[in-house]
């Protein structure tokens, strides 16, 4: 009897695990199938062609791909140091009494739906950006900043948790040897929490690159590679959200799927690199 239950459970667990693989393969297959006409028509030139003119049946994905990668990259550059700063403050510097309210506030920020960041960005932040940086307030930089604010609490919370796992005995030993607070943070806490920090960056990256609503509001939605950071741009999810419902020609429809496929592959590659390269490195260093 026990054996049957055991075997049954094993099969069930296996099924659950394979289910993920099946879903992944199914999504990839659908994207590829739907994108096939566009892949046949444009080939790899789609990746470099900058013109997107649905009325002339010309489709080039370069502006959207560029916008996706650059806005995500900028957002990460802005958010990562701030998130680590927050985490250090919360774990090493703040008084006990401050830790809980700030920690809770960060967790609550992480729970805000992205569309709210978008609305705030459009109605409040964009006019400010117009005043500070010129341009018309909507563009690549605004999108990157809104994105960075959006992923910040999420990164900070995970980083804080992983820093909290640093054993006290390690820190106290360092202090006993005469290390300053800065030395302890730099040489004990950060190396110890490295895997967690990188994990948070990967998760945030995944969220930022696929983010749609918050960015649609503030990016400016135009298929041009911006010359300046304040110029309007577009990204892959933004293009899909904007244009999918009205894509009535077959090639148009298929080109949007091609973009989706590219986004899928980009996120896959980014996360794979991060996982296999950085995590391995940090683990072997330990």
């Amino acid at each position, binding site marked *: 009897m026990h054996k049957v239950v055991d075997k049954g459970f094993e099969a069930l667990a296996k099924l659950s695990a394979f289910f993920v693989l099946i879903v992944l393969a199914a999504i990839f297959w659908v994207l590829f199938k739907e994108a096939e006409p566009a892949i046949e028509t444009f080939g790899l030139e789609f990746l470099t062609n900058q013109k997107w003119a649905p*009325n002339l049946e010309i489709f080039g994905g370069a502006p959207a791909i560029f916008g996706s990668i650059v806005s995500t990259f900028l957002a990460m550059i802005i958010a990562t140091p701030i998130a680590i700063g927050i985490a250090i403050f919360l774990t090493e510097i703040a008084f006990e009494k401050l830790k809980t309210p700030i920690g809770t506030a960060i967790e609550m920020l992480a729970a805000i739906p992205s569309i709210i960041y978008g609305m705030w960005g459009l109605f409040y932040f964009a006019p400010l950006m117009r005043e500070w940086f010129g341009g018309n*307030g909507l563009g690549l930089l605004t999108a990157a900043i809104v994105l960075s604010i959006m992923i910040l609490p999420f990164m900070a919370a995970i980083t804080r948790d992983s820093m909290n796992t640093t054993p006290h005995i390690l820190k106290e030993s360092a202090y006993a040897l005469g290390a300053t607070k800065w030395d302890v943070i730099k040489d004990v806490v950060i190396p110890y929490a490295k895997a967690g920090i990188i994990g948070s960056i990967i998760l945030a990256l995944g969220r930022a690159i696929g983010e749609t609503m918050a960015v649609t509001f503030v990016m400016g939605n135009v298929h041009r590679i911006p010359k300046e950071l304040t110029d309007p741009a577009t990204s892959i999810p933004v293009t899909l959200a904007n244009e999918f419902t009205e894509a*009535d020609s077959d090639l148009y429809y298929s080109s949007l799927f091609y973009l989706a496929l590219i986004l899928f592959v980009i996120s896959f590659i980014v996360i794979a690199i991060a996982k296999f390269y950085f995590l391995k490195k940090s683990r072997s260093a330990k």
Partner: protein
Amino acid sequence: MVKRVALTAIATATFTLSLQAERISGAGASFPAPLYYDWAYDYHKATGKEVNYQSIGSGGGIKQVGSRIVDFGASDKPLKPKKLDKKRLYQFPAVIGSIVVVYNIPGIGDAELRLENKDIADIFMGKIRYWDDKAIAQDNPHLKLPHEKITVIHRSDGSGTTFNFSYFLSNVSEDWRNEIGVGKALSWPTGIGAKGNEGISNLLKQTPYSIGYVEYAYKKRNSFSAATIQTKNGKWVKPAEENFIAAAKYASWDPNKHFYQILALQPGDNSYPIVAATFILLPREKNETNKKVTAFFDWAFKNGDESAQRLGYIPLPQSTKDMIRAYWKKHNIDPSN
């Protein structure tokens, strides 16, 4: 007690079933959606019949009626007779709307700014970049135009409004025709994109020195300032309801072509140049549901003009309505049949 509950349940169930038989569903264009909701609400109150309309965009409407998911589709862009034959669809206009060029220039009020039609094309192409450009200034000697950069706001989603607007621009500017062309989604050379008429309205409100194009209904609702532009023959014409109606009167519909016609640039001294009809699509083989749909529009043509005007649309002229009814009769889908 139990019996009573059961009876009520059965009664409710049959009632719901009979209601369902009287329900028609449609999907498509977002521009006439507020009006269709209004008509459907009044129609339900008057007859007890339900019309369920989903505003998913013209492209989606064509797709859904093409695959027979809904009873009728709605599109801002008329389909050519050939395409209708291929997709086995009927088509007729439901109501007329107009597109106005709206601007946000502090100190310049509604209809005060005059823009030549070809200058509108140049602005939306990024060739005229400042509000005090000579081309604009010479038509507005009485206005003090600021030396500010023009921010163009256009649609980021595919849209029948963009189709009609770009059709107009293609006919008034050769450069536009050669470089950009006509379509529901374009490769815009300048400006920022916003989703839907609502998106353009929001951006326009908060961006000083911007210009955009919206359906008149949105201009009315937001009290935007709209430009005075030119008729086909170059006379100045204000963006006002009587001028839209004047243009609609010139429309020469042809039922043999399933009413395929683009209404921009009609002749006449008071004809506002950017008016557009929005269309209904019906699957040819579904006679019975088609009759229910035409019954709804027949009712709306009789009783719905007032709500159309209130919402900023132009009802079809009586002659056009009669023509549509004759078209229904010819194809055996008129409601009384």
